[in-house]
């Protein structure tokens, strides 16, 4: 993936906008005429990461498709807070069917567009982690396997937040949810479970798989653009912190997403046809504690009876990711090259 070098130190490589760049080199989000695919008035919590991820991704997809976009949405927070009768927050053509069938519905839409000769219309399917890694998994795998022309975006907030924070196959170890309470010798979600969907997607040999977070808009938008350049099944896995489910302050959403990447707990990379083609190296390596301590779902690790042993196991997971994807490079303390070359 080619990235435009950014030399503007004052504005930094990471701010949303950059008055010193040409318009076409600025982010979609910095454009006053962005689509606002999901518009104001939605009922998302204060500081919701999912609605941010959705607007980032879909606005970028809208730019990439010149507005020729249809979105299919699985049941979940995003759907519930965006379309309670009589108001919808969507500014794009949007369809909600069921919890577990978004990939298949999207396949149908894509097929219809193809048969109708509307090849310019692109299809995006989106779901939370539950609708992706659990109940929607069968349909997703089928869509991948058939290489249907759909970009599937998973907004991963690591649990069933819509129903009141229950555990999903994307809930990380030790995290507290309503169905993984902080009792017993291994409080919270147990270790050694869960699905690594990006890698499962890669195993389908689909043309494009990528992960991203709401903390790095440039990276996210570039990945959406790349995905939209390709036809066939594509998968984008976006980490979107949930203040409610994670027990974090509403203003920490982006900060926490950033730490998830900087600790190595959430590797940010992309792959084509099953092979990793690029990673976003860690810029300022951070111990997992800094990430965990901002979230009440991990409070039991730092309570009256601290659990350094569990924290250490989480650090191991981060270190394994760092090793697997080579997230720490010579540039790790030097953000410039981190962003310029990738």
């Amino acid at each position, binding site marked *: 993936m080619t990235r435009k070098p*950014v*030399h*503007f*130190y*004052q*504005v*930094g*490589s*990471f*701010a*949303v*906008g*950059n*008055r*010193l760049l040409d318009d076409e080199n*600025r*982010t979609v*989000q*910095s454009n*006053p005429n962005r689509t*606002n695919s999901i*518009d*104001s*008035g*939605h*009922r*998302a919590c*204060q*500081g*919701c*990461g999912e*609605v*941010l991820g959705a*607007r980032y991704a879909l606005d970028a997809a809208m730019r990439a498709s010149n507005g020729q976009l249809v979105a299919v949405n699985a049941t979940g927070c995003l759907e519930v807070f*965006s*379309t309670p*009768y*009589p*108001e*919808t*927050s*969507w*500014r*794009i053509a949007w369809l909600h069917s069921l919890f577990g069938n978004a990939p298949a519905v999207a396949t149908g839409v894509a097929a219809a567009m193809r048969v109708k000769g509307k090849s310019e219309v692109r299809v995006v399917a989106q779901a939370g982690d539950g609708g992706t890694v659990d109940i929607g998994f069968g349909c997703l795998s089928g869509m991948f396997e058939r290489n249907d022309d759909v970009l599937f975006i998973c907004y991963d907030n690591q649990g069933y937040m819509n129903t009141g924070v229950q555990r999903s196959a994307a809930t990380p170890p030790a995290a507290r949810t309503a169905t993984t309470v902080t009792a017993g010798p291994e409080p919270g979600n147990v270790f050694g479970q869960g699905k690594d969907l990006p890698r499962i997607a890669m195993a389908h040999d689909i043309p494009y798989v990528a992960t991203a977070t709401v903390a790095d*808009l440039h990276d996210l938008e570039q990945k959406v653009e790349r995905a939209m350049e390709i036809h066939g099944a594509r998968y984008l896995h976006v980490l979107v912190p949930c*203040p409610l489910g994670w027990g974090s*302050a*509403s*203003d*920490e*959403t*982006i*900060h926490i997403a*950033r730490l998830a990447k900087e600790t190595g707990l959430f590797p940010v990379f992309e792959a084509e046809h099953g092979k990793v083609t690029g990673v976003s190296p860690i810029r300022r390596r951070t111990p997992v504690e800094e990430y965990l301590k901002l979230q009440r779902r991990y409070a039991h690790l730092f309570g009256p009876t601290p659990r350094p042993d569990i924290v250490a196991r989480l650090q191991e997971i981060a270190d394994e990711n760092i090793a697997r994807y080579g997230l720490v490079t010579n540039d790790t*303390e*030097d*953000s*410039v090259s981190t*962003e310029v070359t990738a």
Partner: protein
Amino acid sequence: METPFAITLDAGTSRANHTGSWRIERPLYVDRLPPCNNACPAGEDIQGWLYEAESGNYEAAWRKLVAVNPFPSIMGRICFHPCETACNRVQVDDAVGINAVERFLGDLAIEHGWALPATALDTGKRILVVGAGPAGLSATYHLRRLGHQVRLVDSAEQLGGMMRYGIPAYRLPRATLDAEIARVVGVGVEVVVGHVVHDIEAERRAGKFDAVFLAVGAQIGRRVDIPAGDSSKVIDAVSFLHQVAAGDPPLLGRRVAVYGGGDTALDAARTARRLGATDAVIIYRRNRERMPAHGEELEQALGEGVTMRWLSTVDRFEDGRLVLETMRLSDQGFPEPTGEYEELDADSLLLALGQDTDLSLLNGAHDVVVNDGVVEVQSTMMTNVDGVFAGGDAVPADRTATVAVGHGKRAARGIDAYVMGTALESAPKHELATFEKLNTWYYSEAPRTQRPELERIRRQTNFEEVVGGLTEENALFEARRCLSCGNCFECDNCFGVCPDNAVIKLGDGQRYQFDFDFCKGCGICVKECPCGAITMVPERT
């Protein structure tokens, strides 16, 4: 399209749902005082002109600059830039090279012959400015801009004061000095050189001046009584530098000793080297840490072969031989005699032990309070005598050209208020933009551009400028390293990170505004603002 009831909804209808009612706190855009501006003795809006420079609007940047300080080229060379010491960027990597950018802008202006802003309509008020150093010239410039007539008198043959007679040409090329002074004089000033004012009151009355500004500086080198044989050549450094500047350098011989630890001592030693001295030794009674001279000046001096004798005092000087007493520092850090002596061969001794002000011109104005050899002034720079203002080295303050320029500006405003009979209102000072208020994630670390240095060898043999300037590329680079501490630079972060699209982008230079119909008060914009220009306040109840 005929859409089914309730199941299908028209796009964007949720804007009817004003989620602003969820808010218990609201974000607020603020402007905070950048540490560089806060530290600038001349009162420059450094961040302001850097902002223009970042975009490559160099003339705009220069105009913002000279609105405060008419000497960017000079300052860019001789200012000791406390702004860079204060720069928040120090905590990311290195301070922004503000001084270098200032010089770049100043030189560019001279190159393009950019003119200073036009003066205001004539007020009919006449001001006498005594002393054409940085303070006097600065006051003159600002007074003219305000529309007052100025007579600028100086005892020397050329304008510039210490900038010309104290600072060697290798630090401040005369062409630069002349150009920027000429530009100030060019705005219409009555200049009288070679004129010594003996009685300020008399001159004021004679010339019907509504006010006077005393900027006579500190021209008298302080002398101490050192036993010395007739053959021993002892000169004070100030006079030495003055004579060199005036083109009449005294003969010092091959071995020159300089006594003192200030910048003047370094200037004298380095000048001596350039005049052909093989040995230039600085004798100082304290150690390096306690030396008042600026670090980079010392580095350059050492680089040029100047040597140091720390913890030494001159006991006597006879027959080309200096007798030095070795000192030690007390626990409080004061030098104490040790009774141990050593000798040093020297052809001449330059005394750089500080300067005094010649206030003889105040003889007529007995009421002016003088304290410890300098004139007491109020915040308006007015002495306790109506209409008599003072600034620069003649008043209690750091004796640097930048401080003097600041005095000149402040005095001009004070004089203006005095002669026009208006009250001097000072703008409220913003809260300081400390490093903690920044979100530095959004800035990339960047190495500071090092100014190219001329090869040492060339420096030793002539007065060519030691420190080179920045190329445009480097200057732009430096300018863009500014973090814009405390003031919005329109990075669009707040506009981008709002989950509720509750930030309205008003367009280039117009910044942003919150849409409180929808803002839920999550605070992400505050957290993610790189420069700390947003704050949260409790929702009005």
